[in-house]
């Protein structure tokens, strides 16, 4: 496996640098808005790039990809929830909130995987980009339903308490899930790339393409610091959850690779990207939704898992693994 060699891409190395900087207690710090700005740029760029590619895509395959994105987004949280509850160490509301993160996706992990593929010279299908956009939201709905169910069970046991979800109503929750800022940015940019006249689209190409990898490096530098910053919270989170943060992406990655290889029939690169989508945990769209809809859950649990455990695991270990799995399933 030439995976380790392929980790020597600037994106991954900058992630490691950020991580290292915090470990050696450097005072390196980004101004608070920089990561937010970089993240907006990355979502817009990937959206435009994806929209451009998908305008040339096959409608049948695209719809199939969307269907399977929904399936993954809806089933992975249920698997995650069941797993956590089976340990007996995680209460139902925290399990609901955490599970939702694993049904959704991490754009940062996805982009790192693309950098990895480019560096390895591996071609990849463009459909996973649309799956990225689609998978942001459905898991949120499942997370909310799991939490509502957990509250109802607790209520039948105890006195009839308030249900924050109840007030919201299902339509409001669906609204929250699908108008999430990152979803709007991604889908909006895709739509714009599809609608805009080709000549005018050409004018934004340098912004969207040329500086993309450099911006990704800066973003991952900050994400490396963010991951390391969370290490102090490991204690708070506990060994069971940390283990979950490593096992769940392996389960998701396996399922994703199978989906990419068989029902979708993607190439090695595309299959690996579906595995990455399934394996990654959201740190943009899901946390705010859970804060509002499942306020009883402790944010430090899901943020630590998503940013401090699963993200670095996927970037450093997961991606080469999912690549190997994709090679096995597709080429093998």
């Amino acid at each position, binding site marked *: 496996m030439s995976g380790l060699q392929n980790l020597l891409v600037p994106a991954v190395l900058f992630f490691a640098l950020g991580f290292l900087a915090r470990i050696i207690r450097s005072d390196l710090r*980004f101004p*608070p808005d*920089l*990561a*937010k700005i970089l*993240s907006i740029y990355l979502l817009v760029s990937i959206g435009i790039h994806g929209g451009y590619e998908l305008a040339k895509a096959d409608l049948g395959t695209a719809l199939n990809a969307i269907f399977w994105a929904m399936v993954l987004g809806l089933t992975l949280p249920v698997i995650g929830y069941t797993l956590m509850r089976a340990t007996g160490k995680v209460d139902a509301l925290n399990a609901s909130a955490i599970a939702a993160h694993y049904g959704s996706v991490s754009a940062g992990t996805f982009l790192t995987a693309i950098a990895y593929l480019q560096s390895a010279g591996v071609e990849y299908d463009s459909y996973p980009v649309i799956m990225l956009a689609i998978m942001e939201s459905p898991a949120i709905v499942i997370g909310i339903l799991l939490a509502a169910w957990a509250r109802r069970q607790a209520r039948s046991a105890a006195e009839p308490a*308030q249900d*924050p979800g109840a007030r919201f109503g299902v339509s409001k929750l669906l609204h929250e899930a699908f108008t999430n*800022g990152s979803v709007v940015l991604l889908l909006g940019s895709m739509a714009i790339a599809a609608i805009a006249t080709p000549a005018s689209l050409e004018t934004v190409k340098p912004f969207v393409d040329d500086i993309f990898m450099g911006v990704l490096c800066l973003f991952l530098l*900050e994400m490396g*610091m*963010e991951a390391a*910053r*969370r290490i*102090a*919270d490991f204690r*708070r989170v506990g060994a069971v959850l940390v283990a979950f943060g490593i096992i769940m992406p392996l389960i998701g990655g396996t399922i994703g690779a199978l989906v990419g290889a068989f029902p979708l029939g993607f190439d090695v690169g595309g299959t690996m990207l579906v595995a990455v989508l399934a394996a990654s945990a959201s*740190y*943009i769209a899901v*946390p*705010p939704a859970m*804060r*509002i809809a*499942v*306020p*009883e*859950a*402790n*944010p*430090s649990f899901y*943020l*630590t898992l998503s940013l401090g455990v699963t993200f670095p695991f996927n970037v450093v270990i997961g991606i080469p693994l999912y690549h190997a799995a994709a090679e096995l399933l597709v080429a093998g």
Partner: protein
Amino acid sequence: MRSLEQKKLLTIITSKQLEEMILKKLAPHGIGGYTVVSGHGAGASGIQSGMLDIDTNILIYIILSEPRLERVLVEIDRMMDKGYRLKALVTDISILPRKPS
């Protein structure tokens, strides 16, 4: 110079994600205005490094009269009961009253 009025300053410290929800909940209680500042911090629910939207904190400042404060605090108390993580502090202030127009 007009003389100072006694008012209350309510400061809510919470996650940026809850800003719109809180302001929408408080609006019906007749809040005349508010001021919001962003920051970072740490507390029982871990680090809020301020780097991503999801881990940025805010301070919401609301100047109001005592009777209005009572009603607003009841609303905030209800939110806290539901599990929302926020700190609500009240300070006594004197304020130069708005120019009568």
